[in-house]
C-alpha cells in the first residue's frame, strides 16, 4: 500500500510537470486527466470513496471534456503561441522552487496533530458524508445552487455576441 502511494504520487508529479513543459494543448489536457485519475486513486487510499467517484465524474468527466471541447472549438490543437522570454521562464521555475521550499520549511515547523476522533475507515462512505452534508451543511448546500445559477448566467452573458 505504501508502494501504491509512492507510485500514484510519482505519476501525479510527472504528469503535472508535463502539463507545464509540453507545448501542445491537447497533450496538456491528456496529462491533466492522467493526473486527476491518479488523484482519484489517492482518494481511495484515503478511504474517501464518495470523493473519488465525484472527482472522476466532475473533473475527468465534465471539466476536462469542457476543456477539450473549447480547444477543439477554437482550433488550438497546434502549439502556435510562442514561449515567454527565457528570463521569464527561468524566473517562473525559480519562483515555483522557492515557493515549494518555503512551504515545505513552514510545514516542517508545525507541531504534531492528535486526531479528535478514534480512527474509523468509513467516514468517506456516501452515508457518512451525506449525513454531514444534509445536517450541518444544509444551508451552504442550498446556497451553492445560487452560485451555479450565477455561473450559468455569467457564462451565457459572456457567450453572447452583442452585449
Amino acid at each position, binding site marked *: 500500500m505504501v508502494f501504491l502511494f509512492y507510485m500514484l504520487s510519482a505519476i501525479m508529479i510527472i504528469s*503535472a510537470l508535463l*502539463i507545464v513543459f509540453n507545448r501542445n494543448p491537447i497533450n496538456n489536457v491528456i496529462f491533466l486527466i492522467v493526473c486527476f485519475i491518479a488523484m482519484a486513486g489517492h482518494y481511495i487510499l484515503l478511504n474517501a470513496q464518495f*470523493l473519488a467517484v465525484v472527482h472522476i465524474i466532475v*473533473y475527468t468527466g465534465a471539466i476536462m471534456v469542457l476543456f477539450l471541447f473549447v480547444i477543439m472549438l*477554437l482550433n488550438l490543437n497546434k502549439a502556435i503561441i510562442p514561449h515567454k522570454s527565457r528570463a521569464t521562464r527561468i524566473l517562473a521555475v525559480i519562483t*515555483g522552487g522557492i515557493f515549494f521550499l518555503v512551504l515545505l520549511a513552514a510545514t516542517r515547523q508545525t507541531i504534531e496533530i492528535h486526531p479528535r476522533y478514534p480512527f474509523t475507515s468509513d467516514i468517506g462512505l456516501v452515508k457518512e458524508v451525506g449525513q454531514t452534508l444534509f445536517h450541518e451543511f444544509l444551508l451552504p448546500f442550498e446556497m451553492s445552487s445560487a452560485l451555479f445559477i450565477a*455561473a450559468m448566467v455569467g457564462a451565457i452573458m459572456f457567450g453572447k455576441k452583442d452585449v
Partner: protein
Amino acid sequence: MKEVSSAIQLIPLDNYIMLSVALFSIGLMGVLFRRNIIVVLMCLELMFNSVNLLITAFSAYHSDPSGQVFVFFIMIVAAAEVAVGLSIVVMMKRNVESVDINLLNRLRW
C-alpha cells in the same frame, strides 16, 4: 479491501503535505510559465486539486467527515469557475483572435 482501508495508518501525514505542496508549486510555476490562457486555467485546476487532496488527507487522519464535505463544496466552486473561465476564453478568442495572455495587457502598470 481491508488492506486499502487501513493504508492511511501506514503512510505518515507528512507525505501528503509534501505531495500537495509539490503539486501546488508546480501549478504556480505553470501559471507563471505559460502564455496559453487555457493551460493557465488548467494549472489553476491543478492548484485547486492539490488543496483538495490535503483537506481530504487531514479529514481522513482526523476521522472527521466535515473536511470531505468542504472538498465537495470546493469542487462545486471549481465547476462554476471553469464554466465562467472557459466562456471568457471563448470571448477573448472572438475579440482579439488569440488565446495569448500577453495580449491582455491593458491593466498593466
